[in-house]
């Protein structure tokens, strides 16, 4: 049995109409934004399943884009994200897909930065505003965004995990959960570290200096 807070019951505070199709969508967009280093030039959303079928009546498109712009699920500006994106010069597009996805409410976000990098992030909205990221750049992951999280991309080779752990230990950060995902031996790998404490920008810079680390991002709990 799950331990609920009274504020799971009287809450969350959110912009309607749907916790899964609106609040969850905004959360997915915001998680993706935090994973991407650099400033976003363009984002392409590929909608699957129920997201593809009913996005219009639920404002799923507006919520996803709002998340990419950094808005929270309870921000009333959610409804105006298209206008905000145009003002900020962020290009966006939506494609509807009838391909199979891991969950009925799924979206792939393909994000291009001004620095010329491209990231591809697949996420699902699994109910009650809760979300799961399922794939980052072709590598399967499992990530809820409920904790302070450090995500790195690195080349799969010995010693990197230990060096990252050392940086965290030097900053007195306790690792609650840690997982490493890779496509194949020696290929690119992703490390997800969830912590009980906030992870600072200084820690991120320390991690970024570890040899072999290609990307590092901090997710604040949403």
């Amino acid at each position, binding site marked *: 049995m799950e331990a*609920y*807070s009274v504020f799971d*019951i009287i*809450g969350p*505070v959110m912009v*309607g*109409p749907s916790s899964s199709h609106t609040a969850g969508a905004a959360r997915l967009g915001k998680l993706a934004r935090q994973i991407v280093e650099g400033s976003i030039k363009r984002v392409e959303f590929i909608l699957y399943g129920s997201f593809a079928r009913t996005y219009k*009546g639920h404002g799923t498109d507006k919520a996803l884009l709002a998340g990419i712009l950094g808005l929270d699920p309870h921000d009333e500006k*959610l409804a105006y994200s298209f206008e905000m994106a145009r003002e900020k010069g962020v290009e966006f597009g939506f494609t509807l897909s009838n391909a199979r996805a891991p969950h009925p409410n799924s979206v792939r976000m393909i994000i291009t930065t001004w620095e010329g990098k491209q990231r591809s992030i697949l996420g699902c909205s699994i109910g*009650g505003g809760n979300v799961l990221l399922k794939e980052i750049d072709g590598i399967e992951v499992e990530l809820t965004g409920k904790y302070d999280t450090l995500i790195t991309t690195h080349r799969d080779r010995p010693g990197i995990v230990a060096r990252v752990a050392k940086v965290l230990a030097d900053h007195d950060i306790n690792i609650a959960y840690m997982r490493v995902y890779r496509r194949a031996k020696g290929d690119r790998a992703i490390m997800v570290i969830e912590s009980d404490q906030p992870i600072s920008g200084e820690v991120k810079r320390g991690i970024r200096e570890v040899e072999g680390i290609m990307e590092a991002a901090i997710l604040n709990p949403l």
Partner: protein
Amino acid sequence: MYEFSTGSQLLRLTRKFRKPIWEIVALSEQERTGRPWEDIFEDMRSRLRVMEESIRKGLSQELKSLSGLSGGEARRLYQRAMVGLALSGDRVARAAAAALAVTEVNAAMGKIVAAPTAGSSGVIPGALIIVAQELGKSEEEIAQALFTAAGIGLIIAQNATLSGAEGGCQAEVGSASSMAAGALVELLGGTAEQCLAAASFALMNLMGLICDPLAGLVEIPCIKRNALGCLNAILCADFALAGMESPIPFDEVVQAMYQVGKALPPTLKETAEGGIAATPTAKRLEEQIFKGDPL
């Protein structure tokens, strides 16, 4: 010490510590999270203010939903109540209008408090806040009543479900109505036993209610069912305050609701494949809303 997951445990705690339900619920939150009492209360008061704001917005503006299917009807009922014409009585009609208002705000991408879900977000603001304000209750007392409501919701969440996809509308509007009924009773000075009796009546009255949203959107019939849940809560609070006792304990009613939810076919649980959603007119409207002008 204050932990509970069933109605009978909650009643035992109220007797053991001689405290009302709201206080046990707040103490258990404090115990579980380690957050200061004042923080927890301020959090609840801020939710109350969001609820009030959503009522005000829905009653003062002519909102339209994204689909164009709904909006603006809360004001009609409210005006009828304000000129003294409402058959259901002016206070009850004002409460129902507030329930409509909040759910219309939700459908128009406005800010609401999911209580317990977005689809049932109108019930508690209507039944609890409007009635409490008209009876001259303070913000503090209404915030306390929200803890009572949360306690009832916690028991349903832990032993059954609050999700329409899992249990039908009875799990959303039914649960919200049950929470509001119990909270009203405690707010009006009823005992903890009366509070859970009201919660039982409300859930029993809405048992079996299916989730059949037109086009899968939280509008038709959801918005008006929020008003129904609001009325039902007020009625069931009156039942309990009149001294009626629930022949079936709250925990058993919750179990029954869960079993009914599991027995409902998937077509009647938020898939928009049964009930009102499956009518020819609903299908035609769905076609119009989603017809493909590509993005």
